[in-house]
């Protein structure tokens, strides 16, 4: 039974890399700790005071030794630094070809919505061997999605989207926790990631169909919130910029700078449109700050993303059923970092 072992399950493509680094660090720690303990214990016994009046000869110090025990630890520290940074960059490099799941944290529960519309609370079903990217927002305070078996965590911060990704390697049921203290029921804000074989996952998806996909719901909001009047019924533009294909494009602003229209930019432009106005348009859009929930906002963003048809690698409609492209095999992602 796994829960008796004093070591966490290792179930993602990156968890083994984190463990390898961890074992290296454990080795370095054990070496230096034992070295210092051994030397101290030896000295303390060997040079114990034998005579109450003895005065040992003073020792000046040694530049050579000082240099030695500054430089060697520094070099070892640098190996850890480089290795640790590489693992970190792999953890935080945005995942391509990932199944996107929208996550909203609120005191004290997690809401998940799949791109295909299925909604879950405190549970998330994902397929094994495929990258899953969580796009996370919070309704209130800072939360954090922490999945120990995947060795991954990231804060969910008010006012922006944060992401994390993983690719599970073993079917199973894994704990996840809120790891940033968030008030009274912080320790109750946890649940399970259920990793399934792709076919099982397909069955699960069909068995739980029903809700509109986030993009479809976002389309509804696009109409009901009146976006259509300026951005056009088909997002072709009007008094406001065209939104067809806006996601991932470069937007040139009134000031002359340009930004990449990612999720964060879309979010800001809905909540606080005056912050970055696209060149050629007036600052006429009303702010939606406080008018729209985080979930609705994610849905509108999902709709806008779905307009970028030139992005086939985002499986917005349905994940390729068990087709398991080569990129989705467990070893693909770690080797893709350099």
């Amino acid at each position: 039974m796994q829960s008796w072992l004093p070591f966490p399950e290792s179930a993602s493509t990156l968890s083994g890399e984190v463990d390898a680094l961890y074992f290296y660090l454990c080795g370095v720690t054990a070496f230096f700790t034992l070295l210092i303990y051994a030397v101290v214990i030896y000295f303390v016994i060997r040079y114990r005071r034998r005579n109450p009046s003895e005065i040992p000869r003073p020792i000046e110090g040694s530049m050579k030794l000082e240099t030695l025990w500054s430089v060697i630890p520094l070099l070892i520290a640098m190996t850890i630094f480089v290795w640790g940074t590489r693992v970190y960059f792999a953890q935080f490099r945005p995942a391509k070809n990932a199944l996107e799941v929208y996550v909203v944290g609120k005191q004290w529960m997690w809401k998940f919505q799949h791109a295909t519309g299925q909604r879950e609370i405190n549970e998330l079903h994902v397929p094994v061997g495929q990258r899953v990217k969580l796009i996370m927002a919070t309704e209130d305070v800072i939360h954090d999605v922490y999945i120990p078996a995947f060795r991954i965590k990231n804060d969910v911060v008010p006012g922006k989207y944060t992401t994390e990704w993983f690719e599970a390697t073993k079917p199973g049921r894994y704990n996840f926790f809120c790891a940033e203290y968030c008030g009274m029921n912080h320790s109750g804000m946890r649940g399970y990631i259920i990793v399934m074989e792709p076919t099982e996952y397909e069955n699960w998806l069909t068995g739980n169909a029903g809700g509109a996909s986030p993009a479809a719901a976002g389309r509804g909001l696009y109409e009901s919130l009146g976006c259509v009047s300026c951005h056009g019924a088909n997002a072709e533009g009007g008094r406001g910029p065209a939104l067809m294909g806006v996601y991932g494009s470069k937007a040139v602003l009134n000031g002359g700078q340009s930004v990449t229209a990612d999720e964060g930019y879309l979010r800001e432009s809905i909540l606080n449109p005056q912050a970055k106005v696209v060149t050629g348009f007036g600052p006429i859009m009303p702010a939606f700050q406080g008018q729209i929930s985080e979930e609705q906002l994610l849905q509108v963003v999902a709709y806008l993303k779905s307009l970028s048809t030139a992005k086939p690698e985002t499986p917005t409609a349905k994940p390729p059923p068990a087709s398991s492209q080569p990129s989705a095999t467990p070893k693909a992602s770690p080797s893709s970092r350099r």
Partner: protein
Amino acid sequence: MEEFEIPKPPRTNYLNAEFGLKSWLLTKDHKRIGLLYLGAVSFFFFIGSIYAMMIRLELLTPQGDLMQSSTYNKTFTQHGIIMVFFFLIPSIPATLGNFLIPMMIGAKDLAFPRLNLLSWYIYMIAGVITIYALLAGGVDTGWTFYVPYSTTFSNSYVIATGVGIFINGFSSILTGLNFIVTIHTMRAPGMTWYRLPLFVWSHYATSLIMVLGTPVVAITLLLVVLERLAHIGIFDPAAGGDPVLFQHLFWFYSHPAVYIMVLPAMGVVSELIANFSRKNIFGYKFVAYSSLAIAVLGFLVWGHHLFVASQSVYAGMIFSFLSFAVAIPSAIKTFNWTATLYKGSISYDTPMLYALGFIGLFTIGGMTGLFLASLGTDVHVSDTYFIVAHFHYIMVGGTLLAYLGGLHYWWPKISGRMYPEGWARFSALVVFVGFNLTFSPQFILGYMGMPRRYHTYPAELVSWQVLHVLSTAGASILGFGLLIPMIYLVWSMRYGRIAEANPWNLPGLEWQTASPPPTENFLVTPIVTHEAYEFAPPEHKEVVGKFERQQPAET
């Protein structure tokens, strides 16, 4: 060994020069103020320990059966606030530092005796306000006060606590200022910088952090209070603010604050290791300057608290690098302490046992810091019990052990009495064992994924509970070990053997005057003609390694 004029024990000393409450509450004597701090700090330590025991008891089982979640959250918050701001930060500097710095440099008092007393009053006022906040209903934000929980969502006494800590900061600033001016201007004739005991060097570095860092946390907490009261919008994204900005501001102080807590402890350990081996410290200048290096570099690593807080990955990379860099001065100190033992005359008196315990625990605390400086592993272990274990190894295994060692070492000077050696050695051993049993399981727990600040945990994870039970068992042993010195130190004030002026037979200036010292410390201002820890004449010096002998420092 240098001959010293040892004045006959004066009939009056600082303890019996005056009597009555007023003579204590209005004293300007740094030694009496040190004792006022000792009393207050011990009181807060006792309160903080009770919270710790409550936490450990609650975590014995996965369910929340001892208290409700809201109570548990207040318990760990208040444990942190009391221990960090009211025990660890003032512990060594305000008690031992206050008492000893003037004596070690051959001065009659600190540069600003009235400010010194004022700093104690500020500390007490802050303490009273904070205790009020705890009694009125408590605070549940975590000692870190992260926004927007603290500004918008918490229904607890955030403002009162924030005001308490804000005020407390000024006590720190005044103490730091006083030390800096004293060390610069009041050294006795002949007491050059390189003759200063390392205790003084490390307090100098600490004082720099106190003066430069504390205002930042004061401002930050003020902003939290303003945001809470008036919603000024600096941290609220809906009003154009940024919650992560708070974390930058908070850790800009609170990481250096870690060094406020540990640098004085390193100073104490340098004294203990040198004096109880009857050797000068190996590589004096390296140990002295590594304190300053820690103080400076310590200001540049705050971002390692934000590796998973949506900080840029490139910023994370820089902060990771700098965090590895700040580990090196600590490593240098540890190696130099170890080398000092070489060919020494090592006694096994209680203070030395604590110093050796410090080296053992600080080594583990420091090495496990590398797991957190390293980005790849920090992602997994940050905000887990791994961190909790790591900083308790530094704060308790380091600072508390050094504090106890220092208290025993200077106890004859402070009280004029000896503590009971047998009991003291026994309790030092109990503390060491209890400490390790409490906190080493938490490293494993953290790597397994147990988040910190959790009231309950999944019952199906049996190994988590086993580790928690071990930890709680250790905490009981640790608590027992800490209770023994509390009892016998108080007992010894009345019944302990009378201590002579220099019971350890040491060259330090503080030992060249009576125990307890007269109010003016030295009847005649000492003239310093030797280096710190000079047990044998410098011409007997031995040089290790193949290097040419360096000229014997600028004496």
